[in-house]
C-alpha cells in the first residue's frame, strides 16, 4: 500500500455550538434534560443536545398541527419554491454539512462529501418539483396530504434519511415532527437552521432530539397521522404493533441481509470493487449492504484471492482524512454488537480473515472482515451485523443462487454480477428484494424508489412511488 501523508479536511468550516435545544414552531427551545453527542472517531464530546420529554413532543406535534392547515393550503408552486430554496441552501452549505456529518457519524469525508450531501440536495430538488405536479403522479386527480407526519430516522445516513423523510412529506403538503438518532442529532439541528434561512413557515418542520422513548412517544402520539420509520426490524415490529388499529399510515424501512451474487462469467475486478463497495461503504452501516457474498464455486478461489488483495489496500482511520476508505464505527454499542456477532461467526466454525490493519487507539473501530466457509445456518449468514463484516457462501447453479439469496426473512436489496443480460434479468425476477443492482451496488438516486420486501419493511421512498406514502 502506498503511504499517503495525512490529508484532513478542515474542521473550521463548521461551528458547533456547545448546546442545542429542540426545534419547535420555528424556534430553538430548551428541553427538560440533555444528552451528549460524541465523535465516534475520538470520543470527543461535540455538543450537548436537549432530550425531548413527552410534553416537548406534544408541543412539537401541536406546532405541526397548527402549521398543517396553511401549509397544505398553499398552492403547490409555492411549496415547491420553499423546497427548491432548501435544496439550494444545502448545495451552498454542503461542505460544512459534510464535515459535520463525518464528525458526528464517523463516516469518511469522501462519502459524506461525495455521496450523502449531493444526494440530500438532489432529493429536495427532486421532490420540490413534485409539489406542483401531484395530480400527475398517478395517485388520483386531486391527491391530498395526510396531516402531521411523525418520522424517526437512523444514525447511518443522518441527513440523507432526513431528506428521504422530509422532502416528500412537505412536497405533498404534510407537516413533520422528526426525531434524529440519539448518536447523530447534529445535522438535523443544522437542517433546522436551513429551514429558517429558507423562511419556511414555523411549525412545518419540527426537530426533536432524544432516545428511544422520545421516538416511541412520537409514533404513538394520537395526533400524528402518518408514521415513517427507518431502523432495525425489531423496532419496526414494535412500531407496527403500536400503530396497529389506530388508522395511522405507516411506512417502514428496516434491516437487510442482502445477497451479492457473483456468477462465473462476471468481470472479476469490477465484481471485487462492487463487493467492497457493497459491504465496506459507510463501515457496513447500510441496511441494503451486500453482507452475504454468494459466489459461484468455480471462481470462488480466484475471486477471494482478488478480494483479499483489494481489502488490504483499504485505509481505515480519521473520517476527516480525504484518503480514508473506512471510518469509525458509529457508537460503542454498535461496536460491541459487531464484535459479538463476529466472535459467534468464529465459534460456529466459519473462518475469519482481516487484512493487517492498524486501528487508532481512541474511538470505535473495526477492521474490514470476511468470513469464509459460512453456511446458511450460521448466525452471521442470517442476522444483520450492520458493520464491515462479509459472509461468503458458494453456489453451483443459478437456481441454487436464487434459493440461497431468498433464504432470509429480509428482502431489501440484492446484487447480481454477470456478463449475460438475460441471466441478470431472470435472476432479478426471482429475487424477493426491493432493489436489485446488476453489475453495480449501493447506487441511490432521488428518482429511484427504495424499500424492502418481507421483514425489511413496507412502502417505498424515492421516486414517484415515494409520494404515495404521504398522500391520501
Amino acid at each position, binding site marked *: 500500500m502506498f503511504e499517503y501523508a495525512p490529508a484532513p479536511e478542515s474542521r473550521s468550516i463548521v461551528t458547533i455550538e456547545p448546546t442545542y435545544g429542540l426545534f419547535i414552531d420555528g424556534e430553538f427551545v430548551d428541553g427538560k434534560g440533555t444528552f451528549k453527542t460524541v465523535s465516534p472517531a475520538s470520543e470527543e464530546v461535540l455538543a450537548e443536545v436537549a432530550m425531548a420529554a413527552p410534553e416537548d413532543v406534544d408541543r412539537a406535534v401541536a406546532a405541526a398541527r397548527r402549521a398543517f392547515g396553511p401549509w397544505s393550503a398553499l398552492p403547490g*408552486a409555492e411549496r*415547491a*419554491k420553499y423546497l*427548491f430554496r432548501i435544496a439550494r441552501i444545502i448545495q451552498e452549505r454542503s461542505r460544512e454539512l459534510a464535515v459535520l456529518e463525518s464528525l458526528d457519524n464517523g463516516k469518511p469525508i469522501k462519502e459524506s462529501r461525495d455521496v450523502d450531501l449531493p444526494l440530500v440536495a*438532489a432529493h429536495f*430538488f*427532486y421532490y*420540490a*418539483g*413534485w*409539489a*406542483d*405536479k401531484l395530480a*400527475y*403522479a*398517478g395517485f388520483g386527480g386531486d391527491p391530498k396530504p395526510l396531516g402531521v407526519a411523525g418520522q424517526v430516522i437512523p444514525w447511518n445516513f443522518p441527513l440523507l434519511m432526513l431528506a428521504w423523510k422530509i422532502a416528500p412529506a412537505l412536497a405533498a403538503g404534510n407537516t413533520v415532527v422528526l426525531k434524529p438518532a440519539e448518536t447523530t442529532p447534529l445535522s438535523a439541528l443544522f437542517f433546522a437552521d436551513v429551514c429558517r434561512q429558507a423562511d419556511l413557515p414555523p411549525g412545518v418542520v419540527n426537530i426533536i432530539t432524544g432516545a428511544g422513548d422520545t421516538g416511541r412517544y412520537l409514533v404513538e402520539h394520537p395526533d400524528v397521522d402518518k408514521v415513517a420509520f427507518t431502523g432495525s426490524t425489531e423496532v419496526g415490529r414494535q412500531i407496527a404493533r403500536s400503530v396497529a388499529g389506530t388508522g395511522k399510515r405507516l411506512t417502514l424501512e428496516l434491516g437487510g441481509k442482502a445477497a451479492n451474487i457473483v456468477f462465473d462469467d462476471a468481470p472479476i475486478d469490477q465484481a471485487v470493487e462492487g463487493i467492497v463497495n457493497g459491504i465496506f461503504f459507510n463501515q457496513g452501516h447500510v441496511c441494503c449492504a451486500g453482507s452475504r457474498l454468494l459466489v459461484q464455486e468455480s471462481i470462488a478461489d480466484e475471486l477471494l484471492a482478488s478480494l483479499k488483495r483489494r481489502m488490504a489496500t483499504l485505509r481505515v482511520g480519521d473520517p476527516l482524512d480525504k484518503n480514508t476508505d473506512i471510518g469509525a464505527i458509529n457508537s460503542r454499542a454498535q461496536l460491541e454488537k459487531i464484535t459479538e456477532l463476529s466472535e459467534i461467526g468464529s465459534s460456529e466454525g466459519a473462518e475469519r480473515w482481516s487484512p493487517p490493519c492498524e486501528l487508532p487507539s481512541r474511538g470505535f473501530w473495526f477492521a474490514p472482515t470476511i468470513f469464509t466457509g459460512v453456511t446458511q445456518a450460521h448466525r452471521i449468514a442470517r442476522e444483520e451485523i450492520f458493520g464491515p463484516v462479509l459472509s461468503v457462501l458458494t453456489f453451483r447453479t*443459478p*437456481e441454487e443462487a436464487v434459493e440461497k439469496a431468498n433464504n432470509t426473512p429480509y428482502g431489501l436489496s440484492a446484487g447480481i454480477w454477470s456478463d449475460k*443480460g*438475460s*441471466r441478470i*434479468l*431472470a*435472476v432479478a*425476477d426471482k429475487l424477493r428484494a426491493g432493489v436489485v443492482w446488476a453489475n453495480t451496488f449501493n447506487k441511490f438516486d*432521488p*428518482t429511484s424508489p427504495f424499500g424492502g420486501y418481507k421483514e425489511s419493511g413496507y412502502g417505498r421512498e424515492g*421516486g*414517484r412511488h415515494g409520494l404515495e406514502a404521504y398522500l391520501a
Partner: protein
Amino acid sequence: MPKSAPTKTAKPAKIAAPTRLSVRKTYKLYVGGAFPRSESGRTYLVDGDNVALASRKDARDAVLAARKAQPKWASATAYNRGQVVYRVAEMVEARRSEFAALGIPADEVDAAIDRLIWYAGWSDKIAQVTGNANPVAGPFFNLSAPEPTGVVGVVAPASLLGLVSVVAPAIVTGNTVVVLAAGPQVAITFAEVLATSDVPGGVVNILTGRAAETAPWLASHDDVNALDLTAVTDPELAVELERAAAGTLKRVLRPAGETDFTADPGLRPMTALLETKTVWHPKGF
C-alpha cells in the same frame, strides 16, 4: 468620487449641463451562445430601437448551432437540465427591473418565473409519467422511455410568459431550439438571461425579425425535427408551415384555438417534442 456640490469657482458650461447620458442597448440575435448581428446586415425599427432582422441564412446558422449543441444537452442528466432551467428562473427574478422597463407587468414576470420552476421540476419526472414497464406476454424485459426528438423550430409569442412557455418545455426535455421571436426586446433580454444561466450555447437560439419570412425556411429545413406553431395566429401561414413540415415528417405542435398561457400547460408541450423508445431484452438463466 465623493458626491459634492459644484464649487463656486467652477466655470459655467457652454452647453447646458445635461443629466448623465444613458448608454443604449443594441438588440442583436442570439445564436450558438453569442450575440451576432444578422448576416444580412438588416435591421428594423421596434419602439425606437434598431433590431436585427434575421434572414434565411441566419435561420440556417441557428439550426446548425442547435444541432451541434443537441447531443450533449440531451445526454446531460435530467437532474442537471432541471437545475439549469431553475437557474434561468433565478436569473429572470434577478432581472425583473429590465423586464419591467420593457413594459412587462410584474404579475406576468411572476408567472414566467413560476412557469420556469414548473418545467425545471419536470426534467426528471416526465419519463416517470410517460414511460412504462410493459408487461409483454413472454420472458422479456420491456421498457419504454421518452427521448428528445432533436432540434425544434419555435414560432414564439410576443409576451414573456408565452416565450418562456414555449422554450422551457422544449429544452427541459433535452431538445435544442431555434426561436423566431415576436417581441424582440423582450426575447433578447431573455436571451441575456439564458446567456448568464449555465444554459450551454446553442441550446436556445433566438432570431428576431419577421416569422412569416423565416418560419418557412425552418419548416422545410431537413435538419429540424419538430415545429412548435402554438403562437402562429395567421391560419394560412400555419397551414403553409404544416405542409412544408410534412416534407421531412416533422412533429408539429399546433394546439386548437388561442393558447391561454396563464393556464396549466399540461404535458402536451413536452410530449409533442418527445419520441418514445422501447427496449426489449430476453430473460433466462
